[in-house]
């Protein structure tokens, strides 16, 4: 509107598409909105972005403060670093798959498995609690369960006479920690899958039956394909969850299991690697892996949303 633009040229630097529905002319209040969100972004810049940049930059810093790729290479070349990543990736994969599998079955059981309605809300509430009960107290809870003087240990010993710790068996290892991780992994799966299962409309099942299909056909051609993006996305979420866990691992297995997070934690408390640059590189490696997880998760969410409209 050329006629309009002339007098307004100085007050309308650009088209305010973000404003309320009607095409009101931009006025002062518009700038208040930016003031409103500025603190948030300032905080994010200072305390998320800058530290991340610092990690990134110092990954390339050698012991004598010159630029180097060696730290990054060390991740692949130094066997103990490589093993740390391998271990972390392993435990993340195992608990992601286990948590996804078991969590899905549980969600299915209470949503569509013919159980009374109360079971569902009870399970969801408890999953909400369990998925938040992580870290140190959880580790101790499992010590009290399966440790040397644990309840389950004593029950087994009392009923079968077998001391499961006799032959050097210990729960303070990879598999023991996996079991502990599962405590917050599969509730998370339940919490995300339950609404997804609810989204499976009854009519789809009925249409399938009407066209001659049975349970197999329904799950193979309709339900699983529809659920797959959510399943995958949540599994990735579980993976990232386990990968980034520190407190639980530290409290349960201490430094016995050389997970990436444990190593980085040790590095913070004392320069155990004798190479700050390497520490940064390991942290950077974590960021990269978590970012990949996030990307897959976002992709899966988009995919899932597209179909179920």
């Amino acid at each position, binding site marked *: 509107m050329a006629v309009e633009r002339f007098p307004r040229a100085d007050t309308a630097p650009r088209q305010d598409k973000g404003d309320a529905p009607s095409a009101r002319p931009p006025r002062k209040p518009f700038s208040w909105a930016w003031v409103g969100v500025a603190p948030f972004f300032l905080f994010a810049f200072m305390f998320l972005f800058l530290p991340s940049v610092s990690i990134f930059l110092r990954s390339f810093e050698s012991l004598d403060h010159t630029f180097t790729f060696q730290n990054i290479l060390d991740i692949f070349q130094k066997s103990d670093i490589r093993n740390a990543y391998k271990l972390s990736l392993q435990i993340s994969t195992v608990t992601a798959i286990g948590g996804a599998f078991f969590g899905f079955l549980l969600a299915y059981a209470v949503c569509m498995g013919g159980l009374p309605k109360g079971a569902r809300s009870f399970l969801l509430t408890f999953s909400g609690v369990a998925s938040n009960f992580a870290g140190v107290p959880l580790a101790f809870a499992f010590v009290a369960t399966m440790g040397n003087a644990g309840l389950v240990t004593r029950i087994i010993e009392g009923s079968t006479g077998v001391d499961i710790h006799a032959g050097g068996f210990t729960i303070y290892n990879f598999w023991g920690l996996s079991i502990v991780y599962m405590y917050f992994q599969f509730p998370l799966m339940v919490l995300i899958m339950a609404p997804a299962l609810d989204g499976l409309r009854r009519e789809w099942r009925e249409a399938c*039956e*009407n*066209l*001659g299909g049975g349970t197999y056909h329904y799950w193979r*051609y*309709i339900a699983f*394909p529809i659920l797959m993006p959510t399943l995958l996305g949540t599994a990735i979420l579980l993976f990232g969850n386990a990968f980034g866990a520190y407190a639980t691992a530290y409290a349960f297995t201490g430094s016995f299991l050389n997970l990436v997070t444990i190593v980085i934690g040790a590095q913070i408390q004392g320069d155990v690697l004798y190479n700050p640059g390497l520490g940064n590189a390991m942290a950077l490696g974590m960021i990269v892996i978590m970012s990949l997880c996030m990307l897959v998760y976002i992709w899966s969410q988009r995919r899932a949303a597209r179909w179920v409209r």
Partner: protein
Amino acid sequence: MAFLDINHASKAFGEMSAVHDFDLHVEKGELVSFLGPSGCGKTTTLRMVAGFEMPTNGTIVLNGKDITNQSPNERDVGMVFQAYALFPNMTVGDNVGFGLKIAKKTKDEIAQRVQEMLSLIKMPELGDRYPYQLSGGQQQRVALARALAIQPQVLLLDEPLSALDAKIRVELRYEIRRIQQQLRITTIYVTHDQEEALTLSDRVVVMNAGRIEQIGPPFELYNFPTTPFVASFVGTLNQLRCKIMDAAAGRLSLDGQEFRTTSPVVAGRGGDALVMLRPEELHLGSQEGANHLKGIVESVAFLGSVVRIHVKLGSSIVTLDALNERNLKLPKTGESLVVSFPPHGCWVMAGE
């Protein structure tokens, strides 16, 4: 025995009876509508035919075979759902061919039948689209094609047009009828929209509170309803409480004004007769041989092809529908006028 027999079917959910003693015999190739308000049991009955509900009493026999206890995937019926229920993860083509895939037909057979169906619903190039890329009307057509692809003996439609805009509804209504007649497929159509039921059906089953009120062709239901519910549910209806002057001669009086009817006169409660009169039977002005009543215009609404005038006759207000004409002079509110209707245009019903 007809093609599809629903014999005295009932369905109760615990204490509540949703359908009671539903008895219907559908001929091959017929389109029968179940018409009624929400909760009248029409969808429940349809679902019994489809197999999603089991009747508590009664049997369902299709083409001589008792299917009452068969599971839905064994029956030879095709169903179109109100919410389309297209599988969102499959293309249109895959949706339509799904039933054939389950029946283990060859790829070529499936492809050919899918093409046939898509042509039938006039969407031949949309086979590769996904449901979320289609409009509501298109999705419903695909749902129809999907149900027909398996060549069922009976087609069931559960309020298929309720979720669509008015204009699409009218278009699609004719499409469905056209396809049904072309394929000569026995069809049951559930709706709460009486215009739909009247337009499409060979016969209509009017239901209320789980029971059948009346079964018949649209013309019969409209002009010769057997119960007050059917009379008032189907179409607009004037119900006038009149004094009986002479039952044998058919003379009645509405607030002092006398008129005649050729229908048998039956007294309701309190000795009055309930006279039913369709709006289109009333005319403005006098006519030879007709009944004449004087009244005052309450309101005039111009509906396009019809002009709807509310006239106060004594203490009652009647609705009069006149066909629009370009040189029609619309009466004004408060104007007094004479309305006329033929003696055979009204009938007397026993009261509630």
